[in-house]
Every structure is written in C-alpha cells, then in structure tokens.
C-alpha cells in the first residue's frame, strides 16, 4: 500500500528523496520503495523518518481500518 502521507510530508518540508535518504542514512531507492509501499521499514527507520519530517509515527505510518 502506498504511503502518500509520507510523500506529502516530505514535499511539504521541501525535501527531495535524496535529502531525506541522506538524513536518515539509507539510499534514495529505499525511500522511494517505502513511499510506493514496496518495502516495510523497521521501527527504527520509521522513527528516523518521522524525526526528519517532524511528524509522529501515527501521522505517517498508522493506518485506520477504513483507509
């Protein structure tokens, strides 16, 4: 499932995938795969992404049943 909220949060912060990737210590492809739902990150990586984007885990990764 695509993670549109993460992509929106990144764009709202005016960050490219490369910038976010460097900040959290992964490759750009990994960020792209998380956003397209092709890779499930570990909790540590989720937290690092949340900190980089100034969001909480709920904001970016929690999925309501209705979604």
């Amino acid at each position, binding site marked *: 499932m695509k993670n549109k909220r993460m992509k929106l949060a990144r764009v709202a912060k005016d960050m490219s995938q490369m910038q976010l*990737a*460097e900040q959290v*210590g*992964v*490759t750009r*492809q*990994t960020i792209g*795969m998380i956003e397209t739902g092709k*890779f499930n*990150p*570990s909790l540590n*990586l989720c937290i690092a992404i949340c900190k980089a984007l100034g969001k909480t885990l709920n904001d970016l990764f929690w999925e309501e049943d209705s979604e």
Partner: protein
Amino acid sequence: MKKKIPADERQVRDLLWIEHYGYWGMFWCLILTIVVQAIRSGPNLEILGGEIITLAIGSLVMCVGCVKKGVWTFCDQPRMKTNLLAGLVATVLGTLLIVLTWPLEVPGVWFYVVAAVIIFSVTFGILTLMGNAVKRKENKMVDETEDDNE
C-alpha cells in the same frame, strides 16, 4: 563528492534473500555433484573428499547457527514425527546411493542393512539432538525476556 552510503536495511534484506537462494542452490548442486561422481567413480574419497568436506562445513554452519539462534525451519517446529520422516528419507536415499556406488563384491545384503541402520541412526540422532537444543534455546530466550513482559 558523492557520499558513500553503506548497505541500508532494505539492501541488507535483499542481499540476505540473494544469499539464501544462492546458498541453497549451491547446496543442492553440491549434493548432485557428489551423487553423480559417486555413481560414476564409486566411493572414492580422493575424488569426493573436497565436495564432502565442503558439504559438511556448510551443514555444520547451518546446524550450529540454528541451535545458537534457537530457530528450526521456516515452516515447522522440531518434532519427533518430522525427524522420523527425514531420517527415513535420508535412509532410503543414502542406501540407494550406496547400492548404486558400492562395488558388487560386498560381503552380502546385510552390508546394506547395516549401512541403512547407521544412516537412520545418525540422521535421526542428529535431528533429535538439534531439535532438543533448539527447544532449550527457545525456552532460555523466553526466560530471559520474561521480566520485560511484566
């Protein structure tokens, strides 16, 4: 200057996936090589020694790793029934290989029976010992994390 990024967790996962299939591909090719060479040249340790040692090292690493980490297989837990089944399969295949490779001047049919009994005993024994060790490790890990659940 481009920043050098070490393998991240996705790349590590992908590499482990590649190594998993690479390892098992090599494992079964090695067994096939041993079987074909044994059938063609007989039980000649000078020819088969290298392959057998390589297979033994790979198998030993797998066994020790499973016991140390307290894991068995992807789809099953250690149990007597599967140990018996695996022992029987190994006995049938191992004895068949001996029948195909051993020279015809064996002392008698009892030679094959003894070989079958030895193969079954060793296979079943190792699996049972490993299964018990894995269960002990699992229980130890449960005990070690018990306080965290309170």
